[in-house]
């Protein structure tokens, strides 16, 4: 079962207002209309519970709660959640931590809009939760 890209709910978690804006613009340009934002790991978990997005983009280095801890909590809330790490720190240990925590994919910053598009297309063709 597939899901229309325009019906997809996406949550963008990044402590940088600039990074959120750039990624949000990119996601809207791809065709999603419901895009929510969170500025740290704690807010990410709260917003996830509030909106139950179909896809989450998650930075790693953030205040209050880092992205790895936030993914872990989100997966505890919904084991089918699709969380894509989008971070500049794609080190071996963070890649491992992200996989262990249950992340769906890992994008190294600077983000390539084509990769963002590929992920949204994949989620769309797999259908919603």
């Amino acid at each position, binding site marked *: 079962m597939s899901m229309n890209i325009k019906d997809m709910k996406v949550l963008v978690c990044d402590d940088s207002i600039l990074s959120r804006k750039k990624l949000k613009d990119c996601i809207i340009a791809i065709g999603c209309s419901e895009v929510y934002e969170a500025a740290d790991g704690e807010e990410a978990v709260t917003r996830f519970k509030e909106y139950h997005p179909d896809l989450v983009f998650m930075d790693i*280095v953030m205040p209050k709660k880092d992205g790895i801890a936030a993914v872990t909590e989100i997966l505890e809330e919904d084991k089918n959640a699709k969380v894509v790490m989008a971070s500049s720190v794609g*080190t*071996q240990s963070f890649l491992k931590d992200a996989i262990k925590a249950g992340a769906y994919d890992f994008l190294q910053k600077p983000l390539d809009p084509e990769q963002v598009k590929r992920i949204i297309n994949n989620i769309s063709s797999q259908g919603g939760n």
Partner: protein
Amino acid sequence: MFTQFFGNYLLNENLVTPEQLIDGLQAKKNTRMKLGVLAINAGYMTAGQVETVHMKQSTMDKRFGDIAVECGFVTSEQIDELLNQQPQGYLLLGQAFVDKGYMTNAQFEDAIRTYKEKYSLTDEDLNEGEDGKSSVMVDSLIDLSSTSNPDLYKEYIILLMNNLIRFTGDDYTPLKPEFNLSDNSELYITVQGINNGFDVDTALVADEETLIQFASRYADESFTEMNEYVDASACDFMNLHNGLFTVNMSNEKELELKLTPPSTKKGINADDHGDVIVLPVQYPFGIVKFVITK
């Protein structure tokens, strides 16, 4: 990185003044290479021969290449080769200085020759791209032997120079490093810590106007005043650069570094930062200083 360090070299040798350097950096992107400078750089013609051709050009309606071949200074094959060359950044910078009258062809010839000698650069090194020999150039810029881990500091600085080109443009020149920060209530400072095996604080320092320009380039926006997006751009640049550093260290040295969230504030208290290396970088719009604790 040749272009950036060539500017630093010209400045250190007092071949251009800081004002002329800024002017040249600004003019570089609209500068068109002239055959004479290319021929000098390739070693096909001397500056004197180039002058001779220019003089003849003023009396007859012929192209530079045709006159140079007629005079027997070069072959037509060499001219074709020069015309097909992709101009290198450091040559464009040199051409900009010659065009503006800050250097003569002879001074430029001399500067290129001594610059290549100093760094043992062959023409092949130059043609291979701008990345080769970066280690030698950083060595010439700064002595890192007093730091806890000279290799890592060097890798950090090479990556910084490359990331500045990649994310903000190639029209900058690294200036002479400094080893202290002063108290200043007007400057902005964006700090990010690296830890877990290479424990340092890193920072970006600039005045308001310069920070706005730097942020505009990085974010590809036209910011006109200090706001949260300018602040975020400075944080983003540091986070991206430091992040890419952690990725390289993880892949090359099995060092699993971590970063703290970056933040920007106005006003510097030197005591907060301890022993530091300060790398000032001259852009046409101002100086951005990059700081790393020793």
